[in-house]
């Protein structure tokens, strides 16, 4: 380095006309300031060259020669350059270096400490370059006085965003200033990272050596230990007893006396007390555990242990609990204090902590029986715990020591016992001197009322916008790929109506919409499909390729696809093409026929008649797909699939609903006759509707429930995390009416569907989602189409598989075996959100009175036995449903599901969890009918299975006793 500087000096000297002064000064010291005006000018030019060229080293070197006056004069131009860089777009090869050079030049030219610090921290100049080379900073600032340097150091340290990465710079400046080191969070973090050893094998120096050698360790280490975030981040990197790890180095420094052990211990405990992310607390807990408080220290921290056991994350609380146990054994914990701590700990959800605390109380009473009166009411706090086993444990504990307690304790325990189940209360009752108080929440107050959500009310389609600007707003939403099914339907109808009414006005409003052309598909059909609603927009604007539209119209009417899903995919395009065609051919449709009335996708007959009258008035014939879809969506009164009853209990009072149904059918027939007569007067399309109504809509398709395997090599295992070989599915029969009387692509949906012969591909999932909007009155067929996708949520752990099940349950048509099977799959889905959707669907069916609990239970059992359903998932789903108040419904489902699972040779995993849900339900419903297969289960062994089986048996015994 010296050599290069010397050459440069020689250059400078040679260039100068009065060389002697420059040469002498340059020769005297390599980095001293140039003394002559000429030399100053020379180095100024060099500086600009280096700054603009992005040569950091030369920039620093040139700057070292310039005095303060010159530096100050350069500042405006440097600021100008910075602004220029900010405006710069794109990326050049020395982008970073040019900015860094400017960073050092500017920092060196600032005369105020605050301005220098701000310049050094400038984000725009140091992007992509993390830590600044600190020796450069020192070189450009070396001529400043120490106080000034210290000021800059402290200012940099006070910047939260850059202080950590500027640690080296700050430290170098602070050391030169001779003043105190900063102690900000960022500086401490920078220090800690700088000391950390990443790979012990690569360096001879351990973290311990580095800390020992650093004079500021005694000041900064306590800071690190008192900051849960920074300390947690730095120290959790490697938590072992090794001099290279912080958790190993700190105790060693304590042993050497560099840090005070007692202080470190206090600091770490205080940090644990303040709390933070459990992961960040781990190294602190490690240190406290490692330093092992002596009995005296532990006693001094009694308040801390008490607070930690009650409120800290479970590992920390567990440690504190152990210390409390030690203090108890040594006699350092009074009964009153233990009772106070227990009230907090027993309130926690962690079973392990609660169990340990109950043991602690047990031990305390055993050693000093006179404390029972204080401790037992505290133990009764666990009566309210969510876990049944723990409640039982607490009951046993209290029962055992109850005779030792005083009257006041009995009173308080009796009060707390209200939260227990009746079986548990019975255990306590004979030993308690006071009767158990009834629980205000009414958990155990006899058989409960069934609470189901209100039956669904379909949301009506809002009024379509009329103003061209408002239409443009709605269409912009659709073009952006947003909006619900209803938004699409309404937007399309609004476009068609407005094009018919005032095409010029619409054209002006739509002209400003963002670009919508889709040019990246070679095939016509895909081009049309990905145009989306833009197809109709372009038709209005007259920008549509008519040839493309014509070809698309032709190809869509051909019977092309082999699989039924393809028809669903093409239906939307076919409707758009119909609408666009009318507009492009200057024969715009007055409106659409198939726009639904409500969110469930159905149309009222009266509405459809009105729409057909509109066509008759305009003297136009409806487009075939639009008409076909309208027929599929129209609510046919008295049809086989129509949902007669709105609500009712779970298929129990059949006599009542039969009468209601027959009344409905009678009145429906009358209105239906008048509708048919009205339709006959409306031309060919009206005749179609009349025939359709007379025939009762679409005949139900045959559905066959089957268990089978996919042919070899037909399953896409590559995305599945789990394999299920035996698949339960529904095979859908052909619909002759659809194939014969409907245009493509609706006719294509009439094909039969065999899920084994036509395995679903991953990309078909989304295409099938629209099926419910095509067949709102036939949820059974839709469920069968959906089944492979829904089943994947349970069989292959895919996400979002069941999210549309509530739609299925709310569909106006009557649900049957296929819908039940789909819900069964949903209840066994891998992801909680999917199970929740299935639960919603289940409760909706129950609220509508359409749930066949036995059917669902049988399906669930079969899925579990086939390996598609896991009981942990099913238990979670049924528990969620039951806890909302549907105890009776879930009880009925589980009563059907459990017997096959109890009697099978290989007992499924986690049967106990499902039995627990069943027992919860049974206790509330109070059934007297023993569950078939319960005899196969053990009794009194203390296992979860035996405990739950005993609960179920007890319910039957209790019911028999009252009967």
């Amino acid at each position, binding site marked *: 380095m010296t050599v290069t500087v010397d050459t440069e000096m020689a250059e400078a000297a040679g260039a100068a006309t009065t060389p002697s002064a420059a040469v002498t000064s340059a020769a005297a010291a390599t980095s001293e300031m140039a003394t002559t005006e000429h030399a100053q000018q020379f180095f100024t030019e060099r500086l600009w060259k280096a700054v603009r060229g992005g040569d950091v080293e030369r920039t620093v070197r040139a700057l070292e020669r310039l005095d303060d006056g010159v530096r100050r004069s350069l500042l405006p131009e440097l600021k100008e350059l910075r602004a220029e860089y900010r405006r710069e777009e794109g990326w050049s090869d020395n982008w970073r270096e040019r900015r860094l050079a400017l960073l050092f030049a500017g920092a060196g030219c600032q005369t105020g400490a605050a301005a220098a610090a701000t310049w050094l921290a400038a984000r725009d100049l140091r992007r992509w370059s993390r830590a600044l080379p600190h020796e450069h900073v020192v070189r450009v600032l070396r001529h400043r006085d120490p106080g000034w340097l210290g000021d800059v150091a402290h200012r940099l340290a*006070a910047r*939260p965003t850059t202080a950590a990465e500027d640690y080296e710079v700050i430290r170098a400046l602070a050391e030169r200033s001779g003043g105190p080191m900063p102690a900000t*969070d960022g500086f401490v973090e920078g220090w800690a990272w700088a000391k950390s050893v990443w790979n012990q094998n690569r360096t001879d120096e351990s973290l311990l050596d580095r800390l020992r050698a650093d004079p500021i360790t005694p000041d900064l280490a306590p800071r690190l230990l*008192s900051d849960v*975030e920074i300390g947690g981040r730095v120290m959790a990197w490697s938590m072992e007893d090794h001099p290279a790890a912080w958790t190993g180095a700190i105790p060693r420094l304590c042993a050497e006396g560099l840090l005070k052990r007692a202080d470190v211990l206090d600091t770490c405990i*205080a940090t644990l*007390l*303040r*709390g933070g*992310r*459990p*992961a960040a607390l781990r190294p602190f807990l490690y240190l406290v555990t490692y330093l092992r408080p002596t009995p005296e220290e532990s006693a001094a921290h009694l*308040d*801390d242990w*008490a*607070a930690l056991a009650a*409120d800290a*994350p479970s590992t920390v609380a567990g440690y504190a609990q152990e210390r409390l146990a030690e203090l108890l054994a040594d006699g350092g914990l009074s009964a009153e204090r233990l009772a*106070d701590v227990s*009230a907090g700990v027993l*309130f926690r*959800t962690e079973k392990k902590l609660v169990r340990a605390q109950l043991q602690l109380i047990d031990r305390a009473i055993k050693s000093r029986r006179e404390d029972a009166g204080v401790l037992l009411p505290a133990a009764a706090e666990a009566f*309210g715990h*969510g876990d049944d086993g723990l409640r039982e444990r607490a009951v046993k504990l209290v029962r055992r020591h109850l005779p030792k307690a005083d009257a006041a304790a009995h009173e308080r325990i009796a009060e707390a016992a209200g939260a227990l189940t009746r079986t548990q209360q019975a255990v306590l009752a004979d030993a308690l001197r006071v009767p158990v108080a009834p*629980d*205000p*929440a*009414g958990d155990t107050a006899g058989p409960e009322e069934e*609470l189901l*959500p209100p039956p669904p009310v379909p*949301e009506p389609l809002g009024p379509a*916008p009329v*103003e061209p*600007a*408002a239409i*443009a*707003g709605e*269409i*912009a*939403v659709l073009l*952006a790929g*947003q909006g*619900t099914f209803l938004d699409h339907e309404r937007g399309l109808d609004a476009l068609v109506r407005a094009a018919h009414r005032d095409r010029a006005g619409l054209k002006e*409003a739509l*002209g*400003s*919409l*963002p670009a919508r052309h889709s040019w990246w598909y070679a095939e016509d059909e895909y081009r049309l499909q990905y145009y989306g609603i833009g197809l109709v927009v372009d038709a209005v604007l007259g920008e549509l390729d008519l040839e493309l539209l014509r070809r698309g119209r032709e190809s869509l009417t051909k019977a092309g696809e082999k699989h039924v899903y393809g028809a669903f995919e093409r239906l939307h395009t076919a409707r758009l093409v119909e609408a666009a065609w009318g507009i492009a051919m200057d024969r715009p449709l007055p409106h659409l026929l198939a726009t639904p009335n409500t*969110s469930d996708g159905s149309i009222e007959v009266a509405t459809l008649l009105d729409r057909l009258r509109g066509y008759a008035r305009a003297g136009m014939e409806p487009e075939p797909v639009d008409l076909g879809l309208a027929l599929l969506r129209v609510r046919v009164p008295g049809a086989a699939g129509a949902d007669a009853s709105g609500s009712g209990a779970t298929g129990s009072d059949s006599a009542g609903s039969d009468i209601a149904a027959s009344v409905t059918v009678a009145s429906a027939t009358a209105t239906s006759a008048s509708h048919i007569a009205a339709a006959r007067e409306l031309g060919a399309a009206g005749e179609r509707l009349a025939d359709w109504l007379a025939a009762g809509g679409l005949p139900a398709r045959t559905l066959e429930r089957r268990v089978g395997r996919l042919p070899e090599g037909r399953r896409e295992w590559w995305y599945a995390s789990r394999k299920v070989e035996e698949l339960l599915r529904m095979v859908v029969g052909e619909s002759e009416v659809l194939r014969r009387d409907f245009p493509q692509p609706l006719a294509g949906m009439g094909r039969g569907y065999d899920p084994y012969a036509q395995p679903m591909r991953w990309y078909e999932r989304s295409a099938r989602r629209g099926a419910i909007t095509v067949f709102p009155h036939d949820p059974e067929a839709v469920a069968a189409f959906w089944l492979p996708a829904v089943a994947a949520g349970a069989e292959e752990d895919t996400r979002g598989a069941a*999210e549309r099940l*509530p739609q299925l349950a709310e569909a106006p048509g009557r649900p049957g075996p296929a819908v039940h099977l789909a819900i069964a799959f949903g209840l066994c889905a891998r992801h909680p*959100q999917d199970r*929740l*959707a299935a*639960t*919603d669907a289940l409760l909706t069916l129950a609220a509508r009175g359409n749930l066949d609990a036995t059917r669902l239970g049988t399906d669930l059992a079969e899925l579990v036995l086939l390996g598609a359903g896991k009981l942990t998932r099913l238990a979670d789903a049924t528990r*969620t449903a039951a*806890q*909302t*108040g549907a105890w009776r419904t879930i009880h009925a489902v589980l009563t059907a599901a459990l017997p096959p699972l109890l009697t099978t040779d290989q007992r499924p995993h986690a049967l106990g969890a499902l039995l627990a849900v069943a027992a919860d339900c049974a206790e509330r419903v109070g059934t007297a009918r023993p569950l078939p297969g319960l005899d196969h289960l053990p009794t009194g062994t203390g296992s979860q299975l035996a405990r739950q089986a005993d609960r179920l048996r007890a319910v039957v015994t209790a019911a028999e006793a009252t009967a």
Partner: protein
Amino acid sequence: MTRTAVTLAYRTPSALEPSAGGSLLGLQTAGGSSPRGAMAHPSFFAGFIASPRVYAAGLLSVADVAAARYYRPERRASLDPVVTGNGDRLRFESFSGCCGVHARLDVLAEGLEGRTTERGTTNVDVNNPLREALTRLAPDEPLHLRVGPDELAVTTAAEGPLVEKKVPLPDRWVRGFAETQVLAAGFDLRAELDAAQAVRFLRSLPAGGTAKAGAPAGWRIPAPGGVLRPTSRAVPGAVCLAGPERLGALRRVLRHITGLRVYGPPVRAGSEPVASAWEVGLPGMRLTLTLSPGVSRGFSGEGAVLQSLASDTAAEDAELLSVLLAWEARVEIAELGAQAGLDTARVRDALTRLGTAGRIGYDVAEAAYYHRELPYDADRAEAHNPRLRDARALVGAGAVELDGDTGVVRSGEQVYRVHERDGVLGCTCPWWAKYRGGRGPCKHALAVRLVRRGELVAMAGGVA
């Protein structure tokens, strides 16, 4: 991100000290305002607290929220809580660093044993030793609370502050803080749970420390029997619970709660996630957490604040009202209207406007505004609202044309149309298409609104 810093200067650190017959909790104050104007170290209260332990836990919950970031927790933020004295109660407020959670502890008259408080708003110092001491508070120890400096010590420490905290104050944080109050004013009571039901519900929530940003927002339907039934999608009457882990701040007080009340805006089937408020009752106190619609979504972008621009007169009315308000615990709209000579609708608009400037709070439990002025420069933050700034730039560039009811905004190559439907200004831009009013008006709609208000000249001056 625009940010400034605020320096909070306290006389001494707040501390919990043993004193005759119990403990003395001395909360130190810095800055703020009162009916008598700006003050350096106001004193609001001195007296015994009815339930010391519960109060300590509640105060720690508020401090937890102030120190928390539920989204990207590795970054830190810590501003001290803000305390407001409303005459009969003290309110301790904080806002999380991620701008997604607002917490407020209301210590009501019975919690203060009936003692009255001075009126005003200020910051209170919460430091590490204080937090530790509050956590360790022994059972059954009487607690004397003092909000403000010790009057006896003042004479000796008159030279100046001993504790200075310099804390970054991002604009979006201040804006979000203000926004919570505007949003909360649109909330209704959705569910009410008794103590046992509330504990059961709160315990059923995930206990994990970090909220998952990507998790779908949960919806809860209040069902009979004090159950908040989880459901997979929005339905009328449901409340949104996004990032349930964020209710973890309630865990400290869980043992003491007497009930839970849940508030939220009206939702329709299929609604996008919305904000919600969760109020737990405590002996003599109420602790309310207001959650944003998503873990990664702060209140600052919700845009409810921008709606208040709709009314021309709101700004002037707000100025008028701000003179009349004197830290009332409950702002009676009719009474205030009578004093100011404004009708109810205008008072409401003006209050919203004050809310956006951080100069009024909303108490969902009483369904009423209360007066408090955030001790930050909230006006500045609001003026620098990015969307508003962009709108002004559009107006300044002459990009807005009015065409009858429709506004045409030219932005680069693109032309957007702003139209009114059901009282809401919609637009054809992709941003509007994405949120459709869920986050307030877009910049084009704002620009049209500004032009309609004839602020063309004033705004053009502001841009330059």
